[in-house]
């Protein structure tokens, strides 16, 4: 285990009974999980490498309960970790042994669908896909579509600024929400935005989005809903090299076309997918690119011809165009199955999430191969090609001594490479605990200090989801940001990790 979380505070552990007693005054008995076996269900999210047993799990149902829990936590100086559906791939909702795990799953109602203003007000525990399902009868949908959309919650999407395969054209979560209701660490409830566009002052809505649960607890989200495009068609393209595939993607954009989706897979993934569930991907290709074009019939037909011509110019060895909805979905099936498919090569994989300037793709892929070979491991690549977001899947077998650690090392080295070519550590999965220690690769101390000061403006005692995102814990007092209450300083001995 290379991950070190702040050591549990003995005085908090000693006050567990008192904490539970006071939580019972806020929540009905069935909304409080105290029993150890039941708490085990919450010991990790989708980042399963590290686990911790939460002190207690609270499942509030009302804003007043959330507010009361946070006020209590502030008063008793107890840490709080918010959690949506627990699908974070970076350990964003990994619990703390001396902290309350605040599960938002009971906030599961769609409060209002306002078709006239093209938005919906939903509670944070509503699943991403449930929003689209609720409005599809009238031809609408919610655009961001992370792969986990059948399970992940919209509150978690806000915390992580979730993306998906349609981001380049339709944006991330931050571009698709209009309003939030947030409970701050002291229990105060604030509303940011609403059904209108842009902020009357500082864009705290934008700041909250992607803040990984460190600034406040979201209790309501107003999302934009969009009218579904009239139709969509897909091209399935095979290229003789990753470089020609990457050139093709650049050429499409240079011609002024922003496809609804543009995904690339490397040879390892293509072969894994075809073994898993054949869907017609060319086995002789070094790279497969799927391009989806959406809009009106006339526009889509016109663009499909244009993109096909570009593909031929760039040396595509396979070009297939979907002529029916069945065929379009079949092209996508391989991409959607990519993660389970690579699991057939090795039992475990670590999914990384760097973003790079697209033109650097060939050298980054070669570099990744090199890094993996050094550790005797293999990497399969899935790539949101339009926006440069890479998902290298590092294949390993956790039952082999030392392989997990080697996979982790490969992952870190890959992310360092992403940063070195002008990219970033994470495009959509978040920093969480997973990439916390790499923040220094991208940011210097002053950059990080400013981010920590922003944290202090929201949570001056660092009680909300501490140990995530930042490589070190600090006292807000170090920055002149402490709002001392009753002369108490909360961290007599603060761990650095």
């Amino acid at each position, binding site marked *: 285990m290379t991950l070190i979380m702040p050591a549990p505070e003995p005085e908090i552990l000693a006050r567990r009974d008192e904490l539970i007693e006071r939580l019972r005054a806020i929540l009905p008995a069935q909304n409080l999980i105290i029993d150890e076996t039941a708490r085990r269900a919450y010991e990790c999210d989708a980042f399963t490498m590290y686990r911790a047993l939460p002190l207690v799990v609270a499942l509030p149902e009302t804003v007043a309960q959330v507010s009361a829990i946070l006020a209590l936590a502030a008063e008793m100086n107890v840490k709080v970790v918010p959690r949506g559906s627990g699908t974070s791939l970076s350990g964003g909702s990994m619990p703390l042994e001396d902290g309350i795990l605040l599960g938002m799953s009971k906030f599961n109602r769609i409060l209002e669908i306002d078709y006239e203003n093209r938005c919906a007000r939903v509670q944070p525990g509503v699943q991403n896909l449930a929003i689209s399902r609720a409005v599809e009868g009238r031809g609408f949908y919610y655009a961001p579509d992370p792969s986990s959309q059948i399970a992940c919650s919209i509150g978690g999407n806000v915390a992580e600024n979730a993306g998906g395969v349609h981001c380049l054209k339709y944006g991330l979560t931050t571009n698709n929400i209009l309003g939030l209701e947030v409970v701050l660490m002291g229990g105060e409830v*604030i509303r940011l935005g609403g059904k209108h*566009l842009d902020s009357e002052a500082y*864009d705290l809505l934008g700041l909250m989005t992607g803040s990984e649960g460190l600034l406040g607890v979201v209790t309501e989200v107003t999302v934009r809903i969009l009218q579904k495009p009239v139709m969509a068609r897909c091209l399935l393209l095979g290229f003789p090299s990753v470089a020609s595939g990457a050139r093709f993607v650049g050429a499409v954009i240079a011609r002024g076309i922003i496809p609804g989706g543009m995904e690339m897979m490397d040879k390892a993934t293509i072969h894994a997918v075809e073994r898993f569930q054949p869907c017609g991907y060319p086995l002789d290709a070094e790279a497969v690119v799927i391009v989806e074009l959406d809009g009106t019939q006339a*526009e889509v037909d016109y663009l499909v011809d244009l993109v096909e011509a570009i593909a031929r110019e760039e040396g595509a060895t396979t070009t297939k165009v979907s002529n029916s909805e069945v065929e379009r979905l079949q092209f996508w099936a391989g991409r959607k199955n990519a993660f389970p498919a690579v699991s057939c090569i090795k039992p475990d994989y670590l999914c990384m999430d760097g973003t790079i300037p697209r033109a650097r793709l060939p050298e980054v892929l070669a570099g990744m191969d090199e890094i993996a070979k050094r550790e005797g491991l293999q990497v399969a690549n899935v790539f949101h090609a339009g926006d440069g977001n890479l998902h290298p899947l590092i294949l390993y077998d956790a039952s082999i001594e030392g392989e997990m650690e080697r996979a982790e090392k490969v992952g870190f080295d890959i992310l360092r490479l992403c940063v070195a070519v002008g990219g970033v550590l994470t495009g959509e999965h978040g920093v969480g605990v997973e990439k916390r220690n790499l923040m220094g690769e991208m940011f210097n101390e002053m950059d*990080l200090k400013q981010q920590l000061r922003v944290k202090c403006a929201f949570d001056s005692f660092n009680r909300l989801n501490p140990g995530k995102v930042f490589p070190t814990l600090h006292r807000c007092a170090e920055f002149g940001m402490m709002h001392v209450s009753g002369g108490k300083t909360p961290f007599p001995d603060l761990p650095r990790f």
Partner: protein
Amino acid sequence: MDAALATLDIRDAADAVEALRVANARHMPHAILGAGSKKRLGRHSPLQEQISTRALTGVTLYEPEELVLSARAGTALREIEELLDAHHQQLAFEPMDYAPLLGGAAQSATIGGVIAVNASGPRRIKAGAARDHLLGFHCVTGRGEMVKSGGRVMKNVTGYDLSKLVCGSYGTLALLTEVTLKVLPKAETEQTLLVLGLDETSCLAQLRRASGSPHEVSSFAMLPADASPLRLEANAALLRIEGPQISVATRCDALIAQLGDSGARFDTLPQAESAALWAAVRDAAPLAPLSGQVWRVSVAPTDGIKVVETLRRANAPILAHFYDWAGGLVWLCLESAEDAHAAAMRNAVDAHRGHATLIRASDDIRSRVDVFHPQPAPLAALAKRVKESFDPGHILERGRMREAF
């Protein structure tokens, strides 16, 4: 008029660090000046020393295939737009030019100023605001510390999204030294569909119907007959349709078919006229020649007309008004008054959710009347803490947004 003020030209971020360290040591507030095109925007504060970015210019990165451009803060917006145009690209949020409304040289804005006020135009409803296109930035905070955030790639969730925070902060948090923007291809062509002859309510209803259609309309405005830069005799709902020629024509026809039951007359404007019209809407040109005070209101699309009706019932002297963003953005020009009709305006907006900003009024009035929409106490307190996390000494743009900082 500003002759008495000390103005310091900075050449790079190191100069800005030095200037702000000195300013902190002297407890001396400083305004940030680009081209000065938005000098009359925001609260008016007593004379302050100024730091000018006019020497901090130049595009430092432009990769059209990667859809990314970086420029130093003092770079002229016009220079950036010309460069993009040569590659058939654009800033899709089409930043508003405040010159027609506030005076000053047309098209003189700097990119730093555009970001500082989150300037966006009619396409905002479809393509997003400036805040949606700022990928990263370098700045010097009010403390005098060089800080960067974000990056140059399209998808990035590494650390807090401080880009959103500096966008629209009016320079109160940090002095931007370099910004990195997402740029997008220009549409092959555009056309505007005019929906004519309906009353205001029906015009706005047609905008909302169009915004719920799959025809990808990129802008939705409504000009009452008296506010029309087209000098039309009738109210007009305007729908901008952009894309490949073949698609624009079919979508325009589809919209006419869809809205045909409204009893409206239809007309279309070809590319050049369409572009000129939307530039006029973007810059609030219909209100520019009038001499009154100008407010900008952002509410839900269905609430725009309700705000106007509430103001009318309160006998607020509206000289002219028009709508953008499918009815959610209302530009109003009111007869000048000592209180800028602020109470009536705030009441009308607070009946819904949203905000009103006093865009044009005398310096004196903008020092006495809240320019930005007042916030509830917990939110105002949080905003002040955020401000102080960047600028504890209230050095940068003191009083520009809020009296408290």
